[in-house]
Every structure is written in C-alpha cells, then in structure tokens.
C-alpha cells in the first residue's frame, strides 16, 4: 500500500510556495528602490564636491585680481617716480604707459565684475577710464615733448593726485578682497565641512544600503529558491498522490474484479442449484402422474369407476403440484436473472394452443354453467419466441379464468393486430377491484377471491407478464368488479429476439394499464 499523502498537504505546499514567491518579488522591489536612493545620495555628494570646486575657483580669481590691482598701483607709483625725474626718459615712460594700459584693461575683465558689488565695479571702471582716457594721452604728450618743463610739472602734480586716487581705489578693492576672502574662507570651510559630512553620510548610507541589498538579495534568493523547492515538493507530493491513487484504483479494480468473479461464481452455483432442484422435484412426479394414468386407463388390468375417479384425483393433485413447483422455480429464476428462453422461429400458435384448450376443457368439466368460446384462426402468422413459455402465458391466464368463473362464459381469442398478435382472455368472474390490480401482479399476492378459494400460488400473473415482456410484448387487464376481467397479451410477430438460448433480465418497472 502506498504512503498516504492527503490532498490538503499539497495545498499547504502550494500556498507556502506562492507566499515565498511573493516575498521574493517584494524584496527585489525594495532593493530596486534602495538602489535609486543610493544613486541620489551619490549625486548629492558629487554636487557638494562641485560647489567646493567653484569656491576654490572664486578664491583663485580673487588672488588674480589682487595681483592685478597691485600691479596697477605699482605701475602708477613707477610712472610718478619717472615723471619726478629731472630728465625724462621717453623710452621708460613708454614702458610705464604700456604697463598702465595693460593693467587698466586687465582689471576690466569680466571675472572681476562677478567678484565685486556694483559701487566697486563702478570704481574699477572709472579707474580704468582715467588711466586710458586721461593719464595715457598726457603720458603720450610728455613722451612727445620730454623737455616741456611746465607740462612735466603739471603732469607731476596730476600724477601725484592720481596716485592717491589709484591708491585709494586699490586699497578699497584690497579691503573688499580681504572681506570677500574671509567670507570665501568661511564658505569654503562650511562647504568642506558640509561636503565631508555629506561624504560620511553618503558612505554610511552606502554601506547600509549595500548591507541591506546583500541581506535582501539573500532573502529574495532564499525566497525564490524556496518557491522552487516548494514547487518541487508540490510536484513530488502530487506524484506520490498520483501513485497512491493509481495503487488505490488498482486495488479497487482488483477487488471489483474479484467481486465480479465471485458474483459470477455464485451466480453459476445458484444456476446449477436451480437446475438440480428443478430436476429433482420434477423427476418423482413422472412416475406418480403416469402410473396413475396407466392404471386408470386399464392398461394394467380392469379398474372400477371408483378406482378411476380416485386415480384422477391423484393425477389432478400431481399436476397441480407440478405447476406449483414450476411456478416457484420460474419466479426464482426470473428474480435471479436466470430464466432462459429457447427462441425458435415459425411457431404455429394454433397448434401450440391445443394444450391450453384441453386444459381449459378439463378445468370446466365440472362447470356446465360456464361456456368456453375459442377463436384461434388458422390464418395467424407464425411468430418468433419460446413456444413453451408462450403456451405458459396463455395457460396461466386461461386457467385463472376457468378457476374464478362460476357461470357465464370464458373467451379465448388470438388475432393479428398490425405487427402484433393480440391474445384476449375474458371471463365473467368476480373481477378485480382497482385497489387489487397492482397486487394481482405482485409475486405471491392474490386477490381476496383467490385467497378465499385457496388456489394457486399467486405467481401465475407475475410470471405471465414477465414472460410477455421477455418476448418484448405486454400484458395488461381491464376489469370491473361483478362483471368480469379481460386480460390482453400482445406479442410481436417478428420479434427482435435472436434464435437460440436467450437469458432475459427482469425489467425495472412495469406499468399497468387498467380501465373500467
């Protein structure tokens, strides 16, 4: 027997697998979000570095401006010194002029404008304009006329003033520069501090994120792995369940097969038993009935009428006993599905019914008040069926009619109706009430009249109806209490029954048509 794998276990495995898969997916999602955050942190860090760089660049520009303004001042002082000389050297003045112009142009570079505020920019512009528009033409003039003493004197005075102005502006700028430098230094410190802080934060964040990422990756990996392992477990469990089911199906099939074999064997045993018992019960009746006949017939010597009468009673009782035995065996066979028909073609109903007519005449011998009307035309077509059983159907019906009818008439008629032979057995007996119709067809059930008379087994009608249906025909009745009963039997002329031995089964439900 295979190991029990209950169905719910498979469900549990499946559910676990699904949960793990969802967990894994969730973890992967979280990891993606973390990666985005980490990327943002790195970008922040880089921007703080860039800010620091820009501060450093500004500081560099500041140094440059200082140098330039220093140069302007130095060149100015130098020009003044040159002018204060007794003999002016035009070549050196030309050098002074060129240097001043370069310095004036350089302090007007855009990078200084970004560095200072509005008034200081104006100062720078006016300083440059002064050098380029005023000092420069005057220097040009003195270079052209170095010997002009009054011009030199005027220039000297002018230059002295200018030096003061230049010095003032330069000092202002340097002061301003100092201020800016301090500011910048603070900014730089702040920025550096901030950026280093950011760096630290980013690094911490980075490490945390990496650790989290690793943990998440491990978890999600475990989740995915678990999902697949659960799936494998589900597959294995299903496989096991399948094997188990197969084993169980095999087991059941074997059991069913052996039960079928057993049932078949039991059926065969019963069949054999029935065959034996019917044989054994009928066998002794053979000498009983026939020796009675033999003695009564005078075959064995002269007999008196009283002796014949006595032997007739033996014969009648013996035949009654035989019919009881036959009925009991028939109903047993019918109920166990063992009743066989020996189907032949070309049955001559008129010929077969002779025995029925003889039986009726014999039963009515002591009932002169009952008239027997037989109408069996010799034009009836031959039919297919079991001739003994067809005979039995009508024998049962006609015997019933004879037994229950005390006066009036009994009609036994066969006719062709379409594709069927219709048999009619009508009597003027006590009739069967509506309430008794059903029980008349039940095994061992008799009507009140039947019970009162104490005749028969109550099997005649059920057997007759079964035999009609086994021939694919029908048996029904119409009856009126106090008027009489008419039985109808329809049998197909061309039966679909195959010739030979036919085992027929008891039909499930038989409907009864009853009118009147």
């Amino acid at each position: 027997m295979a190991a029990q794998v209950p169905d719910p276990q498979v469900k549990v495995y499946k559910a676990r697998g699904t949960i793990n898969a969802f967990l894994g997916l969730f973890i992967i999602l979280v990891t993606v979000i973390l990666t985005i955050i980490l990327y943002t942190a790195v970008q922040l860090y880089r921007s703080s570095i860039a800010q620091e760089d820009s501060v450093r660049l500004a500081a560099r520009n500041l140094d440059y401006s200082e140098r330039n303004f220093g140069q302007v001042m130095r060149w100015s002082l130098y020009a003044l010194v040159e002018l204060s000389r007794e003999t002016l050297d035009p070549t050196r003045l030309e050098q002074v002029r060129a240097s001043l112009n370069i310095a004036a142009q350089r302090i007007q570079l855009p990078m200084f404008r970004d560095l200072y505020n509005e008034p200081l920019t104006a100062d720078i512009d006016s300083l440059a304009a002064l050098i380029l528009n005023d000092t420069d033409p005057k220097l040009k003039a003195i270079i052209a006329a170095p010997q002009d003493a009054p011009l030199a004197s005027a220039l000297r005075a002018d230059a002295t003033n200018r030096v003061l102005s230049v010095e003032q502006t330069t000092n202002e700028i340097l002061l301003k520069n100092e201020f800016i430098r301090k500011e910048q230094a603070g900014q730089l410190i702040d920025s550096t501090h901030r950026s280093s802080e950011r760096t630290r934060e980013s690094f911490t964040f980075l490490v945390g994120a990496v650790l989290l990422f690793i943990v998440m990756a491990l978890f999600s990996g475990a989740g995915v792995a678990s999902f697949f392992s659960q799936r494998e477990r589900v597959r294995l469990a299903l496989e096991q369940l399948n094997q188990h089911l197969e084993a169980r199906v095999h087991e059941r099939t074997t059991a069913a097969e052996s039960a079928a074999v057993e049932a078949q064997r039991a059926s065969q045993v019963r069949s054999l038993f029935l065959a034996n018992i019917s044989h054994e019960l009928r066998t002794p009746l053979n000498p009983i009935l026939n020796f009675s006949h033999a003695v009564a017939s005078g075959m064995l010597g002269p007999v008196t009428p009283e002796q014949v009468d006595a032997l007739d009673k033996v014969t009648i009782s013996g035949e009654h006993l035989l019919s009881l035995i036959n009925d009991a065996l028939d109903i047993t066979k019918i109920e166990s599905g063992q009743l066989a028909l020996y189907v032949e073609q070309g049955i001559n109903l008129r010929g077969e019914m002779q025995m029925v007519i003889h039986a009726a005449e014999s039963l009515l011998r002591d009932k002169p008040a009952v008239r027997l009307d037989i109408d069996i035309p010799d034009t009836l077509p031959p039919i297919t069926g079991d001739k003994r059983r067809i005979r039995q159907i009508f024998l049962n019906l006609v015997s019933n009619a004879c037994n229950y009818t005390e006066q009036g008439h009994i009609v036994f008629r066969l006719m062709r109706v379409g594709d069927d032979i219709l048999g009619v057995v009508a009597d003027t007996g006590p009739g069967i009430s509506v309430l008794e119709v059903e029980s008349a067809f039940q095994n061992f059930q008799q009507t009140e009249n039947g019970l009162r008379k104490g005749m028969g087994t109550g099997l005649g009608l059920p057997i007759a109806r079964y035999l009609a249906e086994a021939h694919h025909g029908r048996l029904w009745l119409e009856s009126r209490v106090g008027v009489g009963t008419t039985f109808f039997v329809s049998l197909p002329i061309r039966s679909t029954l195959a010739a030979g031995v036919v085992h027929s089964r008891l039909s499930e439900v038989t409907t009864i048509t009853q009118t009147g």
Partner: protein
Amino acid sequence: MSLIGKRIFIVEDNIENKAIMQLLLEKAGALVAFDRWGVTTVEKALSFMPVDLFLMDLMFPHDQDGYQIATRLRAVSELRTIPIVAVSAADPAEEIARAQAHGFSGFIAKPISFHDFVPYIEGVFAGKQVWN
C-alpha cells in the same frame, strides 16, 4: 401397436422413470433394454443389437451426463447412426440447444405426457425430430 418390433434402449438412473417408459413402450409393442449408470451402456447396447433408438436421461450421478454417454455411443461404429432422444426433467430452454449441438434427434420433457409419449416416439421413427 405402432412400435411393434422396435428395439429401444433406455439409459436412465431412476428405476421408476425407466419403469413407466418401459411400460408405455412395451404396451406399444416395442422391445426395451436399459442401462442404469451409463458405465456399461456400450456393452449392453452392443448385446441388444440391432438397437433402433436410445432414450437418454441427461443427469447422472458422479459428474456424468447424458451427452458424455452419447459421445461414447457415437465412438462405436455400430452405434454411431442410431438416433438418440433426450428424456429429461432439466430446463428445456437450456438443454434443447445442447442436445441439438450433440446431434440428438429430440428432447422429451419429464414428466412425460401419458398420451403424447408414444406418439412422439412414433414421430421419431417416422423421421421427425421431436423437440417438445
């Protein structure tokens, strides 16, 4: 006396059944011999030659049946063509088909009919098959 001179061999284990058949057949003028258990049928039949007809019961004790006895009769050349008619209390619906398959010439149900038994046998001698 329609069966005058006919030699009829009965194979039947029940003495009373044999007796009534013998009575009816002998009253009709036939000569009757019989074997009870089927074991010595061939020898007895050969000593009763020329046999005109076998009447064969079908059920015997000791797991033997009339068909086996018939087969043994058929195996003897002198007995091969002699007609065999079954006389049995078994269900005719089942046995007629088997009897036909074994080459029997008829089946008479037990209890036999006092009035019809001899006419059936006459029918067999007239060349008819009797499947009653």
